[in-house]
């Protein structure tokens, strides 16, 4: 238990540090890399919170899929513009004020809410088994809808990207 706690704190620290790096870096590539680190540490936190399946999904989809996609995107746009992608910031002061206010608001909400912890699924062991069964029985409708959504967005994204090329050629 104490090891688990130690790892939890470690992951939280790394998530925090990587997000802070994201806030202050000016290179977009570095920002994307630190987002990967952040997402990986979040997946670690998931694993420690009895959500192993979610942790694996997070690694496979985010770190393996989305972020690679984004990196490709950065490099592609980079190549066309021909200079390294630096980003500038604007609205820093109002943005900061609003973000801090929102942070304080959220923390305040957490403080005010009393969470009554029920000792429940920590005792069970085969979470993944359970999730698999439920996914095919109780949650089958959202599951199918999610599949449909993926298909639609896949076709849509492919269509949009290909249309661009055609227009360029013509």
């Amino acid at each position, binding site marked *: 238990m104490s090891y688990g706690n130690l790892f939890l704190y470690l992951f939280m620290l790394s998530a925090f540090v990587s997000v802070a790096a994201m806030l202050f870096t000016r290179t977009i590539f570095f920002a994307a890399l630190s987002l990967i680190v952040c997402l990986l540490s979040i997946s670690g936190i998931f694993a420690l919170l009895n959500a192993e399946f979610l942790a694996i999904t997070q690694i496979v989809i985010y770190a393996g899929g989305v972020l690679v996609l984004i990196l490709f995107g950065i490099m592609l746009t980079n190549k066309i513009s021909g200079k390294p992608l630096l980003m500038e910031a*604007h*609205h820093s002061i*109002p*943005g900061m004020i*609003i973000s801090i*206010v*929102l942070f304080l*608001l959220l923390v305040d909400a957490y403080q005010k809410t009393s969470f009554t912890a029920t000792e429940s699924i920590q005792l069970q062991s085969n979470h993944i088994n359970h999730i698999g069964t439920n996914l095919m029985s109780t949650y089958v409708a959202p599951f199918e809808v999610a599949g449909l959504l993926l298909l639609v967005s896949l076709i849509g994204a492919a269509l949009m990207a290909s249309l661009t090329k055609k227009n360029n050629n013509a």
Partner: protein
Amino acid sequence: MTETISSSFSLWLAFCVLGIPLLSALICFIISDKVAWLAPLFSSLLIMTSTIIAIILFFQITKTGTFSYSWPWISISQKTIHAGILLDSKIMIMVLVVNLVSLVVHLFSISYMAEDNALVRYFGMLGFFTFAMIGLVMSSNLLVLFCFWELVGFSSYRLIGHWHEKPEAVNAATKAFIINRVGDLGFLIGLMILWSYSSNLDITELTPNYIPSGWLTAAGACIFIGVISKSAQFPLFNWLPDAMEGPTPVSALIHAATMVAAGVYVLIRIENLFTTEVFVVISIVGVITAIAGAMGALFQYDIKKILAYSTISQLGYMVMAVGSGAAEGGYLHLLHHAFFKAGLFLAAGAIIHAMYQSYHHHEVKIDVQDIRNLGGLRKKLPITFLSFIICGAALAGIPFTSGFVSKELILTQMAQWSGIAFSWKWFILIGAWMVSFVTPIYIFRMIWFLFLKDAKHQLEIIEVPLIMRIPMLVLSLCSLALFVTFAPFHISSMINFLLATFPAMNLSITILSTLMVVISLISAYFIYSKNDLHHAREFLFPHFYLDWIYDQTLIIANVWAEFVHKIDRKVIDKLIHGITYFQVTVAHLVGWTDRFLVDGLVNGVAYSAKGIGTITRSLANGKIQSYLLWTLAGLLIFILWVLS
């Protein structure tokens, strides 16, 4: 047991009456353009069915008494809004009238719109309008009523802009829509006030008991704003004459008989919510509208515009009646007005149709709606002439017609309301009498120009087909007093039905109003029979009176002038010099103040407005991120405000 059976029978019938027009609209929307000729047939048959069912329901309701049925619609934390149907004999008459007018308009449209290329859309919207109007009349909850109120406005918008290739029609439709939105805002605010104080919008359960009187007045005034825009009352009536760009049968159904009367209907339904102050406002607005509409009708030359102004005037009359304690008279007038005004509009439509046909053959370009171009139609369109005369007589309030009965009821009730002692109520009463004096004049003017005067043109005009004649005849039959009561001078048989307590007949009012109509008609005859146009103005200021007054004034003035001249020399000149010096001094003073104080203030206001404008404009700079930022900032401020 029998009671439940009969009540479920009523429920089914009510749903049929409500659903069949909707079904007609749906059929029209799914029907293919190739078989568009089926649409008029189907929808007319369906509306006929629904009318027959409405008649059955009417007798059922008169037998069983008030019927209501409701089910929960929206529940928000223990507060429930019920959607429901409320039917009593008073409401059922309105349902019947809507159905009947809709039916005759459908029949009339079959021929009138035969050459239109958007038949399906037209009949679909007619059916939809009928559905929405019946829903409005039947619903027992103000929120549901508001929904139907919006639907009615929407179908009116679609139908005004039916010929959307004409820019005037599109503009008129947009105008009607936007002006109605203003009123709807008022209506909605009124509903919100009522809801926040009583948590209940059922018309029958809504009582003014729990609501502070200030807020009740505000709610009543807000709802009345909705009525002002829907029923084309004084500040917001200018959309109705423009709405005449729509097809004429639509004007008959929506902008004369039913939709514009919906405002008056709502006023009568929630009459118990209004405070005295609101009633004062209602009666004043009503009387101003009635007079303004009548004056407008007197000077227009377009057939449909005259009828539109006349509608405004009559609606004002009803609103005034509701505001001055003659709600029952107003309601009766609403029903009668639905028949005779729809009849007038259909007759006007028949004239336009016939003229258009004949012009079409002779390839002459004249404005067929201008009454100056028409005339001598009495021989050529006898049936139209007959129905126009009957409906016009009803509008003018000539005895033995329905209009006479309701007008007299209104005047009787208003006389009771205003009392014998002189007060501001007398002005309202005088206004009412004025309107009933002017109304026969303008309707006579129309008949004179259209039918009696010799025609300027030599065209062959053929009477309209049978399918157009029958609706006109039905409506003129309904405008006869025989149809509504068996004793034209004794308003009892039908009204007993509507009224619990019937006001005592006042013989003097009967005689006076009859006399008034006669005088008005005679004067109208002398004005218009001599020559044509500008005599209308001369009637208002008869020139012989004015000349006489001018002469007398001049004689007296000459004597006075001698006298005044002497005084002028000796006294006034000196006085004037003194005053002039004083004025110059003051003028300098004022000029200085103006330049430094007032101009400075004005410029300062302008500069600050410009500055604020620059600041607000910089927020809308087209950058999506700053939009997002300020949106969230607003949201956060709202959340913080709610939390604190």
